[in-house]
């Protein structure tokens, strides 16, 4: 029998990871929901973001999470650039072509990273936040607590932006009907570019937070891509709330798989759940209807 305190500890840890996953997946959900682009390179933006955070942390000798101040606006601009260069030409193309192009983009990112920094994992050697606090037998990483907190705040801000601002209204109108939106004076191409920028910026935020305790390698993006898509599938485009719940579920599933089977099988548990979800609830767990 497993020690219940250990299990609780791991589940709490999983919930914190889940918040971070939600943050990253929200970027993907926005991109997929608003412009119907199938982005297989989303996780690779996280990977590039992680290297950027690591480089800046090494240069200024600050905790990687602090570098988000620079990487988030930087990636917003990079995101818009990539959108103009690669994504806009395949808007409305067959899914297969979109997948091909974004897989190609991911390959380019991975191998730029491999060429520049090689395969050995990189991490910041002196993170300020990588210590733990304990209470009643439960031990949690401060870095993960802070990452979870910032993730929640960011999710709320995006939710607020989508529901309460004029730009949010334009985003929702575009995602509801991209033929009618332009008739209402919405510049669809601009909405797309900004949405892609925001989606990319969120990966940079997630990456910077993650680097406070984690390490990156050129292939970090692959699991982030798949996990983000699993969360989007579960969330069923049910808005920020759906993404949040789905991220938490994924985080907990991963923790349970890691605890009860073995850490190397944690992804298998999540993906098996993904199979069952697609087969039996193809509209997601939190679909709006």
């Amino acid at each position: 029998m497993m020690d219940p305190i250990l299990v609780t500890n791991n589940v709490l840890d999983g919930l914190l990871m889940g918040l971070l996953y939600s943050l990253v997946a929200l970027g993907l959900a926005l991109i997929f929901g608003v412009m119907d682009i199938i982005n297989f390179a989303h996780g690779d933006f996280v990977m590039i973001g992680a290297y950027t955070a690591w480089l800046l942390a090494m240069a200024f000798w600050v905790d990687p999470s602090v570098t988000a101040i620079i990487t988030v606006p930087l990636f917003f601009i990079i995101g818009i650039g990539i959108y103009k260069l690669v994504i806009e030409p395949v808007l409305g193309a067959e899914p297969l072509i979109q997948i091909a192009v974004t897989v190609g983009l991911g390959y380019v990112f991975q191998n730029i990273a491999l060429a520049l920094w090689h395969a050995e994992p990189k991490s910041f050697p002196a993170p300020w936040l990588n210590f733990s606090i304990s209470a009643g037998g439960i031990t949690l990483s401060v870095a993960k607590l802070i990452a979870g907190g910032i993730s929640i705040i960011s999710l709320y801000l995006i939710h607020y932006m989508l529901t309460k601002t004029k730009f949010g209204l334009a985003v929702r109108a575009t995602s509801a009907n991209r033929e009618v939106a332009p008739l209402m004076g919405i510049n669809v191409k601009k909405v797309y570019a900004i949405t892609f920028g925001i989606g990319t910026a969120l990966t940079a935020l997630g990456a910077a937070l993650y680097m406070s305790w984690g390490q990156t390698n050129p292939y970090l993006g692959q699991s982030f891509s798949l996990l983000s898509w699993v969360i989007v599938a579960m969330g069923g485009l049910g808005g920020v709330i759906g993404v949040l719940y789905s991220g938490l579920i994924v985080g907990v599933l991963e923790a349970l798989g890691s605890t009860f089977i073995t850490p190397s099988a944690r992804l298998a548990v999540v993906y098996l759940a993904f199979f069952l979800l697609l087969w039996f609830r193809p509209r997601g767990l939190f679909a709006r209807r």
Partner: protein
Amino acid sequence: MALSEWVRESRKYILGTIILVLVLAFIPFIIGFDQYLLLILSTAAIFAVFVVAWNIIGGYAGQLDLGAFAYIALGGIVAAQLLVVYNITPWIGMFVGAGVSAVLAAAIGYPTFRFGIKEVWYALLTAALVVILNNIFHLPEVLGSLDHYLPPANGWYYLKFPVYENIYWFILAMLAIVVFINLWVSKSKVGYYLRAIREDELAAEALGIDVRKYKLEALVLYAAILGFMGYVYIVIAGTYSYHTFDSPHSIAIAIMGIIGGLGSIAGALTSAITLKVVEEYLRASIGATIPGIHLLIYGLLLIIIGIFKPDGLAGIYESLKKRRTSGRKKISGGGNP
């Protein structure tokens, strides 16, 4: 489809395949049986087999399968374990491996197509399948973390040799067979139905096509070929482990298929052999200073083709041909083999 009808319809392509394979088979004599070059050629040839097999599910049926190594590794490991544990010859083991992979494909494919999962979700599902099997085979009860080796013995009984030319020729023979299977699919009722499904599922179903059944058949055929070739892949790789469930290479197979042009056998062959040979060349020449340079090129090619030439190499060839013969009436057989 009757055999004679198939031969008549595909005569040109059958002949072309035989000539191509004979030319490829002759290369070892030109390069003086250089073992390193033969290893590269064998790798390129086996990837050509994989990509041509992928063409059935990806090119004809239009399902973006990213799970090739689920079937390659499973079939290969089954045959390897049969040899290692029970000393059963791979000549039997490979058929068992093909069967196991086919059963897995049917078990995954049935609910997947039953519930209408396609496009991005199908791609994700198949990508996830490789990771799931990778994780399962990593468990200590299955293969654990260690590399496993085939028995040291060599010879046709083990389909394993101290030199590469034999396995290279064996792969070429398989390549010819898999191309013939493709040609047969392409020219037969199944091929017409799969292409119709790729173009428009709803319209295809309204014409009386059992979409699920045909997709499943394509998937199972693809998986069986991959499962059969798995053992040969392990022979070339030298070892097997949970790493044999290889996600990046699974995606690479789909990429080569897309670059070649969906549904085009010639495109699949060209793109697999060229890309693999260029890859090995780049790895050997500048790979030490710039690792991953070949994959970087894959990525760029994919973006460029996706944006400018979604029909791939086959599309480029077609438009060149059209420019040359414009004005003249075009006569062609079925499809676009």
